C-alpha cells in the first residue's frame, strides 16, 4: 500500500493509514467476529490518547475550575482554558472568548434558539432551514416559532441528496431572520455549500447558524472565512468524549445575547435586587462544566491535528469510492444520496429487505451500521422510504471493513430475499 505523507505548515504529518492502531475498541469482537465499526456518524470511537487523558485527569489533575486558590484547581483551570484555545485554533476563531462549551451540537442550537432567538426574532420573521436537517436542527426552531409566531421555510432536497439552491434563493426575503443548515448531512453525507448559503443569507441581513456535528471529524473548519454567526459541533463525533460540544458565535452577537441558563460561573455578582453577568464566554457556561470532557476534547483535537486534513479527506474519499463500488455491485441495492459532493457516508436500501432486518444480520456478523430514519424523518418522507441502512466511515476504517460490509450485505440478502 502506498503511504501518503502529508505536509502541513512545513511539518511531516502522520499517514492516516496508521490511525487505526490507536483505537483499542477496533481490536475487540462483536458476536464472535472482529468488530467492523461503520457507525461513526452516530458517534466516533476514541483513540488511546483521549482515553488516557480522561484517566490522567481524574488520577492527578481533578479539581473544580475557575474557583480555587490552590495549585491543583489552578492547574485544572489551565487545562480547561488551554482546551478552549485549542478549539479556537482548530476552527480558526478570532478569539477564544467566542468558544462556548456546551453538552453537544444539540445544546448549542437550543442555546442560540432560546437566547438569540427569543431576544432578536420577532413575530412574522422567517427561519430558513433544509429538508436535510437532523431533528436537532428542526425542533428547537419549531419550539421558538410557536412561542414567537415565526414561520419555518424549508429548502428542498434534490433527488441526488443535494440542496436545491435555486429554491433556496427564492425562499430568501426581507422577512428572513435566520438561516440554518447542516454542514454535512448525517443521513446521506451530502456536503452542503455553506459558504454560498451564508453569503446569500447575509445579503438579506439574516443571521446564520451552521450545524457542524458531522463536519468536525473530517478535517478543517474555518469559521473566520465562512462568515456565519454561529457554528456548533459535538466532541463525541470527532474522537472526543460524549457530553461535550462547542458553540462558536461571533463576539459582538454573543455580547448582545442574554444569558440562557442561570447559575454559578455565569455571574459577576448576585444580590436579590440585581445580578450582573460574567463576561464571555462564562456568561453562557452556568454551573460546574464537564471538565474531563473539555480535557478529552483537547486531546481529540491534538490527535486529529497530527494528520493533514487533506490526507484525512483523501483517505475517506478512497473508502467512500471503494464502498460505493462494492455496494453498487450487489443486485437490488440502491444508494440514497448520490451527489459527488459528499463525505464518507453510504445510505442504502436493498430491494425486498427492510433496513432493520439487514442491520440485525450484519450485527450477527460483527458489523455495526445504523438502521432507521437517522433522526431525519422529514427527509425519509421525502424519499418515501421507512429508513435506510447507513455505513459511515472515519479515518480509522480501512478497505477490509468495507469488504466485510459488502460480504455481509450479500449474505443478509441471500437469507432475506
Amino acid at each position, binding site marked *: 500500500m502506498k503511504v501518503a505523507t502529508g505536509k502541513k505548515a512545513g511539518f511531516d504529518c502522520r499517514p492516516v493509514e496508521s490511525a487505526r492502531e490507536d483505537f483499542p475498541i477496533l481490536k475487540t469482537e462483536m*458476536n464472535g467476529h472482529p468488530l467492523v465499526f461503520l457507525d461513526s456518524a452516530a458517534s466516533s470511537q476514541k483513540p488511546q490518547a483521549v482515553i488516557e487523558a480522561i484517566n490522567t485527569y481524574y488520577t492527578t489533575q481533578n479539581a473544580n475550575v475557575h474557583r480555587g486558590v490552590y495549585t491543583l484547581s489552578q492547574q485544572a483551570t489551565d487545562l480547561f482554558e488551554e482546551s478552549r484555545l485549542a478549539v479556537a485554533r482548530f476552527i480558526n476563531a478570532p478569539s477564544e472568548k467566542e468558544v462556548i462549551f456546551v453538552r453537544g451540537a444539540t445544546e448549542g442550537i437550543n442555546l442560540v434558539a432560546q437566547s438569540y432567538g427569543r431576544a432578536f426574532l420577532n413575530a412574522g420573521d422567517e427561519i430558513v432551514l433544509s429538508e436535510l436537517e437532523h431533528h436537532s436542527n428542526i425542533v428547537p426552531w419549531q419550539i421558538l416559532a410557536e412561542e414567537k409566531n415565526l414561520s419555518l421555510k424549508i429548502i428542498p432536497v434534490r433527488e441526488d441528496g443535494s440542496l436545491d439552491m435555486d429554491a433556496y434563493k427564492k425562499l430568501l426575503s426581507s422577512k428572513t431572520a435566520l438561516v440554518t443548515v447542516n454542514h454535512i448531512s448525517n443521513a446521506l453525507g451530502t456536503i452542503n455549500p455553506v459558504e454560498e448559503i451564508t453569503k446569500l443569507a447575509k445579503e438579506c441581513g439574516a443571521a446564520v447558524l451552521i450545524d457542524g456535528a458531522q463536519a468536525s471529524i473530517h478535517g478543517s473548519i474555518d469559521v473566520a472565512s465562512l462568515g456565519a454567526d454561529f457554528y456548533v459541533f459535538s466532541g463525541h463525533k470527532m474522537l472526543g468524549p460524549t457530553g461535550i460540544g462547542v458553540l462558536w458565535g461571533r463576539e459582538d452577537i454573543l455580547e448582545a445575547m442574554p444569558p440562557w441558563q442561570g447559575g454559578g460561573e455565569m455571574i459577576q455578582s448576585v444580590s436579590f435586587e440585581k445580578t450582573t453577568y460574567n463576561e464571555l464566554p462564562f456568561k453562557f457556561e452556568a454551573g460546574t462544566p464537564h471538565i474531563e470532557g473539555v480535557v478529552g476534547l483537547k486531546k481529540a483535537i491534538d490527535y486529529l491535528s497530527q494528520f493533514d486534513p487533506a490526507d484525512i479527506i483523501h483517505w475517506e474519499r478512497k473508502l467512500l469510492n471503494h464502498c460505493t463500488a462494492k455496494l453498487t455491485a450487489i443486485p437490488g441495492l440502491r444508494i440514497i444520496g448520490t451527489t459527488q459532493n459528499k463525505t464518507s457516508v453510504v445510505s442504502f436500501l436493498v430491494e425486498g429487505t*427492510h433496513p*432493520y432486518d439487514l442491520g440485525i444480520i450484519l450485527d450477527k456478523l460483527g458489523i455495526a451500521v445504523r438502521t*432507521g430514519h437517522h433522526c431525519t424523518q422529514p427527509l425519509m418522507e421525502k424519499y418515501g422510504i*421507512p429508513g435506510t441502512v447507513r455505513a459511515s466511515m472515519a479515518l480509522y476504517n480501512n478497505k477490509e471493513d468495507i469488504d466485510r460490509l459488502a460480504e455481509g450485505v450479500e449474505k443478509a440478502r441471500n*437469507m432475506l430475499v
Partner: protein
Amino acid sequence: MSINEKQDQIIDDFSLFDDWMQKYDYIIDLGKKLPIIEQEYKTEDYQIKGCQSRVWLRAYEQDGKVFFKADSDAVITRGIIALLIEVLSGQKADDIANSDLYFIDRIGLKEHLSPTRSNGLTSMIKHMKYYGLGLKKKLENHE
C-alpha cells in the same frame, strides 16, 4: 396445548439449530409464512410504533378465548411475531394476562426485546397482555 407447553415445544425446536444462521433462517421463514393481516387492519389504529420497524396488531375474542393477528414491515420482526402468536393466540384471557414468556430468553432472542432495538415487539407483548386483561375484566363483569 397450554401456553407453557407451546413455549416448551418452541424451545425444543430451537435446540436443534447449531448456529445463529440456521436459527435466523427459520425465523425468516416463519416471518414469510405468517398470514398477512387484512389491509383494513393495517391502519394507524392498529399500529404499534417502533423506531426501527412497525408492527400492526389486532385481537378478537371467540368462545372466551383471545385470538391475535399481526404483521410487521420487517421480516425478522414478523418471524418473532409468528412465535408469539403461536404461543398466545387462542388461549384464555386470564392465561395470556398472567403468562411468563420465558421462551424468548431460552431461544436466545431476548436481544430483540431490548428497548434500544425499538422494533415494536416489547410494546406488542404489552398490548397482547392488555387484551388478555381487558377481556378477562369483560368476562368477569358479565358473570
